[in-house]
Structure formats: structure tokens, C-alpha cells
């Protein structure tokens, strides 16, 4: 059941009514959320339900143990329990997502060394959402260990945090110390939450259906046959793919955050207009933020702390490991690792110049972007677009072949159906104007008007556009596969 399906809209309408029917009983509201979340997950595939339930139980009891060690001031016990919890907690993810990759990589290594390694191809199906809820669970164990929060005693609340359906399949990755306090109280239907949430949901749906899906109908077939595509068409693909990925994933995030907000819960943000960034460091501060801040806190910081004696080299090493992990988090393939490594390399000039924290944002001149900043925006976009080729290609070799293909056979591009282009380019223009107004903090933002007439007009207009401009069949969200 995808967030952009009619089935989901019906499911959510039922959950919404039941949820606010019990607005005087927060505990019952959480039961509604948990049952709905497990139903939602089981609807995808009921066989994967036991994995999330067992992991939830394990982390619940482990969290209590870590909390007890903290209360006793037993630092060693705390560290041992946390390490044990993290290792056990990572096992399902390692098995389902990376085991086949490890086996095939070792087999290739043995073959390249001249040994005979006849290993059958493993077909392990990745349970949806496991990368996302594993990270939620890990952050819980780490936060309890670092005394960022107390161990959660209420198993119902804890299970609701882990399985919360709007963000179960593809994030945002909420932090337990921000999420859990929000479900401790009764939640009453609040006008602002409802309209802000509804607008976010419908806007995300628009981004997904009218831009991302429309772009996919052009991009997907070309990437599948890149060997027979001319250079100008490949260039279009390379330039458009970041926008497809952004509108797909930011669209999904907006829908998830919007649904959550309608239920009175504020989720972590995932995007902050990344294409307005003037350098790659600023870009990554605005792209998939709930993952990058997670890794900054739990991977980068401990690494940078360990390497701090070697100054800027230590920072670069920590950044490189962090970015390669970001790459591999997206998929078990060397091409994803290469994507991360490439991103890390882009940081090096900034670290050397000491400009990681500065110069990344536009110096607006009465809502206009200065030419110098516009150039930096374009360069940052191009650098990211080149890296994205490797996250889209099946192998590193394919990635380089696509880049090489940009310089071989120039001719007129093959754009496919022109109406398709007209639709997604027009919608991209609307998206660009909206983001421009928000980024420049313009006061002309119609979006912020929460009066009933403005909200109804906007929502109806977007829903009409969605149904008029959508393609033949809804497409899966790209981030579901991660």
C-alpha cells in the first residue's frame, strides 16, 4: 500500500476517524496507531511482520538494561550492553541487505586470484523499510547510552515509535527523544495541524505524480538502454536525474510528514531546498537530512573525535568513511560505495580552505540571486548530478560508460513524448517558484495562508492537477528499495 494510492487514502481516513474519536485517551490513540502500522506493514507482506516485532522487543528490553547500567553509574556495563545491542540489531539488516553482496564480492575476489569459487547466486528479499526502522532502533539504544533520554518503559509507545506507518517504509528517520514525548499526551484535532498537514500531503503527492513519475517515463527506458542512446539524450538524463530523485523522495517525505502532522505529530524534516546550496557541504546539510544528521551524530562525530589528533586529515578521514557509509546505506553494490567516495572527495577542497561551514548560502539581493551565486548553484548541481550517475547505474563500469557516452555520438536528443515534457517542465517551474519564494523568505508566499478559503482553493487545485496530469499507472517510490 503506497502513500500515493487510493487504498492508502481510504486506510488513512479510517485511521484518522478512529484516532480522533479517542482524543481523550492518548493510550488508545497509540493502540490505533500501532495496529494501523502493523496492518499497513503486513498489507505489504505479512511474512515480514515478525522481523519488526522481534527487533522492537529486543531493543525494548536492551534499552531497559542500558538504562539500568546508567542509573548504577556502571559505564562499562552500559558500553557492553550498547555494543551488544547494536551488533545484534544490525544483523537482520546485514543479512537481508548485504549478505548476498558480501558473498558475491568474496567469490569475485577468489576468482580474480585464480581460485575456483562456484557460488550460487543468493536471492534474499529485502524486507521493506528495514534500513529505516533499524536506524530508528539504533538511535534509541545510543541515545539511552549517552543519557540523551531515559529508557522507554512503555512498550506500546516504543513499538509505535518504531513502526509509525507514515514513515515506516522510507523515513524520515525520527529520533526517539523527539518523537516519543509527542505521543505521551492526548492529541486533539487542531486546525493548524490539519491544514498544514493536508497541504504538505497534497503537495508531496503533486511532486511525485506530476513531476517524478512523469520524468521517470522518459528517464527509465533510456537508462535501461543507455548503450544505444546518443550523447545529447544521455546528457538530458544526467541533468534531470537529480530532479527526478528529489521530487520522488521529497514528494514522499512531504506526504509522510503531512500525514503525521494531521495526526498531531511533528516529524523530522528530510529536505530544505537542496538545489539552492552553493557548495557540496551545504547541499548535504539540505538533502535527506534525517539520515545525514543521524550519521553526523552517531558515525561522523565519534570518528572525528577519535581522529582529532591528526587535525584536518582526521576530519577528511571521518567525512570519507561517513560518506561511503551513506553510499552503501542506499544499496549493497560497489557503485553506491563509489557514489559516497566521490561525494567525500568533493569535500576535500572545502576542508582545506576551512570553508565547510561558510559560503554555502545565497546572499539575496531583494529576492534575486546574484550571478556569482547562481554559477555556484549550477556547479554544485552539476557535481552532484555526475555523482548520481553512479547511484543510478548498476555497476561502476556502467556509470563510467554513461559518462563516456556523453562525448561519443552527438545528435538531436530523443525526448520521447513531448506532452510528457510539457507537463513535467511546467510543474518543475511551479516547484522552482515556490522554493525560490521560500528560500528568499519572500512575503508573497500564498502557501503560508491558512485561511479556509485559501486552503480549500489550493488543495482542490492541486488534486485536480494530480488527476488530470498523472500518468497511466502510479509508480513505486524510489526510496522504498533502499
Amino acid at each position, binding site marked *: 500500500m503506497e502513500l500515493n494510492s487510493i487504498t492508502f487514502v481510504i486506510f488513512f481516513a479510517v485511521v484518522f476517524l478512529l484516532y480522533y474519536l479517542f482524543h481523550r485517551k492518548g493510550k488508545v490513540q497509540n493502540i490505533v496507531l500501532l495496529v494501523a502500522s502493523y496492518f499497513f506493514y503486513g498489507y505489504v507482506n505479512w511474512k515480514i511482520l515478525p522481523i519488526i516485532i522481534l527487533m522492537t522487543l529486543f531493543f525494548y528490553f536492551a534499552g531497559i538494561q542500558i538504562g539500568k547500567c546508567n542509573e548504577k553509574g556502571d559505564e562499562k556495563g552500559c558500553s557492553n550492553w550498547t555494543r551488544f545491542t547494536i551488533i545484534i540489531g544490525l544483523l537482520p539488516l546485514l543479512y537481508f541487505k548485504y549478505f548476498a553482496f558480501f558473498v558475491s564480492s568474496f567469490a569475485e575476489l577468489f576468482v580474480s586470484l585464480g581460485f575456483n569459487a562456484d557460488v550460487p547466486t543468493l536471492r534474499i528479499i529485502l524486507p521493506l523499510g528495514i534500513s529505516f526502522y533499524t536506524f530508528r532502533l539504533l538511535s534509541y539504544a545510543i541515545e539511552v547510552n549517552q543519557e540523551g533520554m531515559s529508557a522507554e518503559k512503555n512498550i506500546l509507545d516504543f513499538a509505535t515509535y518504531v513502526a509509525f506507518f507514515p514513515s515506516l517504509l522510507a523515513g524520515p528517520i525520527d529520533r526517539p527523544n523527539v518523537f516519543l514525548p509527542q505521543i505521551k499526551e492526548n492529541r486533539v484535532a487542531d486546525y493548524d495541524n490539519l491544514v498544514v498537514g493536508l497541504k504538505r500531503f497534497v503537495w508531496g503527492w503533486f511532486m511525485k505524480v506530476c513531476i517524478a513519475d512523469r520524468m521517470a517515463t522518459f528517464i527509465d527506458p533510456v537508462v535501461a538502454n543507455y548503450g544505444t542512446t546518443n550523447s545529447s539524450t544521455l546528457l538530458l538524463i544526467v541533468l534531470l536525474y537529480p530532479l527526478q530523485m528529489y521530487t520522488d523522495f521529497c514528494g514522499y517525505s512531504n506526504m509522510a510528514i503531512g500525514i503525521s502532522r494531521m495526526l498531531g505529530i511533528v516529524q523530522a524534516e528530510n529536505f530544505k531546498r537542496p538545489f539552492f546550496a552553493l557548495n557540496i557541504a551545504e547541499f548535504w546539510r539540505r538533502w535527506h537530512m534525517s539520515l545525514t544528521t543521524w550519521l553526523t551524530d552517531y558515525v561522523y562525530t*565519534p570518528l572525528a573525535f577519535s581522529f582529532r*589528533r591528526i*587535525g*584536518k586529515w582526521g576530519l577528511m578521514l571521518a567525512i570519507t568513511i561517513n560518506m561511503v557509509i551513506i553510499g552503501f546505506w542506499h544499496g549493497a553494490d560497489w557503485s553506491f560505495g563509489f557514489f559516497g567516495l566521490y561525494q567525500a572527495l568533493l569535500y576535500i577542497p572545502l576542508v582545506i580552505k*576551512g570553508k565547510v*561551514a561558510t559560503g554555502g548560502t545565497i546572499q539575496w539581493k531583494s529576492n534575486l540571486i546574484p550571478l556569482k551565486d547562481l554559477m555556484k548553484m549550477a556547479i554544485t548541481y552539476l557535481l552532484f548530478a555526475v555523482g548520481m550517475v553512479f547511484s543510478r547505474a548498476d555497476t561502476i563500469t556502467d556509470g563510467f560508460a554513461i559518462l563516456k557516452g556523453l562525448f561519443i555520438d552527438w545528435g538531436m536528443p530523443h525526448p520521447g513524448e513531448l506532452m510528457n515534457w510539457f507537463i513535467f517542465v511546467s510543474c518543475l517551474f511551479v516547484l522552482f517558484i515556490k522554493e525560490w519564494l521560500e528560500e528568499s523568505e519572500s512575503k508573497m508566499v500564498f502557501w503560508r495562508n491558512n485561511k479556509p478559503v485559501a486552503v480549500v482553493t489550493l488543495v482542490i487545485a492541486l488534486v485536480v492537477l494530480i488527476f488530470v496530469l498523472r500518468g497511466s499507472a502510479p509508480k513505486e517510490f524510489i526510496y522504498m528499495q533502499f
Partner: protein
Amino acid sequence: MNRNEIIEKTTAIFHEIFKDDTIVLRDDMTAADVENWDSLTHMLMITRVEEVFGIKFKLKELNKLKMVGDLISTIEVKLS
């Protein structure tokens, strides 16, 4: 070393790391109040504090530092 001396030395470190000689430390000051203070420069600042005061932080202590006042108090405790 008393608290004022710690603040004085820490201010000099902030001027050096965040490249701004106008920074005046306050107890409630956070990364949001200082330009250039992000996860990268934070670690450079912590390393410099360790060198200047001859102390060593634990990662857990580092994670508990929410504002400048926490940093000063932690240094004070470590020096006492």
C-alpha cells in the same frame, strides 16, 4: 584556574577557530549563535581546548555539551 580565566582562554580559542575576533562568550550561547560553528569546526575547537588546557574529553561528555556554559563547567571540573 578560575572560571574567568577559563572563559578568557576559551574566548581566544573561539576567535581563532571560528575566525571572528568579536565573539563574546555567554553561558547560553550555542552553535546557532556563532557563524562557522558546525560539526567540523566543533571538533577542531574541542581539540584546541584539550591542547590549551591539557585535558581530555570523553565522547559521552562531548555529547552532553549543549551550550558554552556546559563547556566551561566541564573544563572547570576537569581542572579542579
